């Protein structure tokens, strides 16, 4: 392997041997950690997903235990019966279907809301005004909040009792002022339609600032002469935004949307704290379902199978997104001239 190495431009003659060693020293710790704690569990859980493993051993292991055979059974998943049953079970699992749907809703609408509002706010913050740095600092605050804490705060606001929640109070007063007799109360967490909306809003509150700050950094990197030239050509603000800002921001936009999308696939804390997955399983996310199958029910095999479904969804999402994104970026690059 070392014979194929291209010459190292920074290593002199004296450094060659040292460098050959040092380059391994530098990279190895990270690679070893990832191989041991990421790649190995990844492959292992694929194996587990094809077994009937449960907490405290599989049916085979329990049987063996009852018969007094302890050797070679139940050790870290070895000695379990191989089966495709978990994957068959996936097909008929209604709760799985609804958690997949919920997760897709969180990802799709979450990313869309956060991107559009983030883009709008970044456009506003890109204008010079007094106190802009302060605003940027304020924007960092929600991002740094523990999602669990943000979820509890959200729960206070989406309480539909106007005596407790300032939001419910506000909605009631406004709707009264607009002519509704009793005032509107929204059953945020008890209604299957509203509950996901509340969760989306909490996640958006936390992460719109992230979108905003990154898009703002992207906008500030656009040189002024481009705008100048467009203005000289007589373009108005809206045209400049649509024809120049948005296309130039496309690559960054793709990146932040991908990052946020992949993050929302992982959503669990906000759901646990606000609704616990309910009402019914209207807000349950895939990660929460997997967690419950593994920890509450102890179905290790089945939980791993569902986790692989999630992984496949994530990979499909990322692949399609990157493929479409590249085409878009290429298209807009040639179209902008």
């Amino acid at each position: 392997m070392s014979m194929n190495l291209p010459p190292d431009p920074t290593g002199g003659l004296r450094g060659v041997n040292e460098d050959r060693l040092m380059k391994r020293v530098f990279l190895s710790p990270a690679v070893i950690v990832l191989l041991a704690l990421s790649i190995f569990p990844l492959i292992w859980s694929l194996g587990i997903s094809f077994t009937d493993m449960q907490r405290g051993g599989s049916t085979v292991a329990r049987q063996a235990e009852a018969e007094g055979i302890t050797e070679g059974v139940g050790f870290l998943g070895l000695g379990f019966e191989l089966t495709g049953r978990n994957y068959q079970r996936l097909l008929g699992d209604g709760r799985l279907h609804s958690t997949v749907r919920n997760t897709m809703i969180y990802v799709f609408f979450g990313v869309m809301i956060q991107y559009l509002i983030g883009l709008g706010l970044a456009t506003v913050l890109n204008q010079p005004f007094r106190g802009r740095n302060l605003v940027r600092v304020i924007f960092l605050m929600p991002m740094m909040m523990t999602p669990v804490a943000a979820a509890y705060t959200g729960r206070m606001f989406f309480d539909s009792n106007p005596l407790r929640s300032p939001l419910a109070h506000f909605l009631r007063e406004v709707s009264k002022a607009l002519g509704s007799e009793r005032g509107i109360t929204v059953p945020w967490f008890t209604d299957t339609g509203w509950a996901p909306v509340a969760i989306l809003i909490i996640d958006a509150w936390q992460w719109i600032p992230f979108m905003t700050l990154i898009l703002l950094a992207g906008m500030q990197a656009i040189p002024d002469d481009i705008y100048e030239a467009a203005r000289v050509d007589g373009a108005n603000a809206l045209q400049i935004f649509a024809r120049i800002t948005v296309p130039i921001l496309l690559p960054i936009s793709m990146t932040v949307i991908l990052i946020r999308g992949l993050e929302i696939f992982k959503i669990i804390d906000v759901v646990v704290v606000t609704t616990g997955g309910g009402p019914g399983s209207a807000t349950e996310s895939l990660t929460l379902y997997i967690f419950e199958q593994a920890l509450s029910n102890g179905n290790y095999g089945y939980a791993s199978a569902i986790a692989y479904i999630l992984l496949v969804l994530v990979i499909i999402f990322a692949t399609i997104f990157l493929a479409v994104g590249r085409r878009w970026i290429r298209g807009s690059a040639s179209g902008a001239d």
Partner: protein
Amino acid sequence: MRGATKTWLRRSSRRPLWQSALLYAIVIFWCFIVLFPFYWLATTSVKRPIDVSRGPNYVPYVDFQPIPDHWEEMFGSQRKSTERHFRNSLVSAIGSTILSVIIGAMAGYGLSRFRYYWGRLGWDNDNIAFWIISQRFLPPAIFIVPFLLLYNFFGMVDTYAGLIIAYTMFNIPFAVWIMRDFFNGLPVDLEESARVDGATRWQAFIRIVLPLSAPGLVAVAIFSFIFAWNEYLFALMLTNFKAITMPVLIAGQNNTRGIEWWFISALTLMAVVPVIIMGLLLERFITRGLTAGAVKG
């Protein structure tokens, strides 16, 4: 400095008044959206239970009489619990931050300065870097079962070491990514002249490169710390008593005590405020790290 002020004046004087008004209206509105929940947490934490349920009460001393009881409870009768969980969060976050920074800086430096070629896979530096960052985006749910089994087998459930190892694993990809980006922007001349003077690679890395890359290291440290401090799923899964962290404690308030909003609010602020203060002090590093990851990426 003066030039910047001039541009600012020129630009803003060109803007019609209504646009400025709209601009400030939007900015103030959004700042309100961001800040009001924090205000609400702060006021709720000093309300009597009756003021929480018979409200909503907005302004202390006007709508309600603030009381310090819940904070006193948190640092009084609940002191041991508060301290323990806070310490758990602190230890696991700091421990994993140190490890992530060290391992991330080393790998980032390697990927920036050496040429790697993994013959069997046909991977060069870019492929390796991409592989490393892609680990960051694997759904953590896939690790639930293997980690449970591993941690039980090695007796690491409910230990600091267990949490630190897990969080380090999650933080390394991002750390490597940011540090590689940072080192790429750092000229090699200084290291080279140090090496001409007889320093080894390692010495050049420790004495020349690391001091110069303090901003990158700080950015990585902040991100690692915030991630570990805020993490919920693995903290919930891998702890059951001794090593429970703040997020798990907060999330569990629901079950153990019923919903005592006033106490939860105090606890939440306890978990959130230190991180936010740290973040605000180090704001420029955060922005830099964010943009290094995404804008160039």
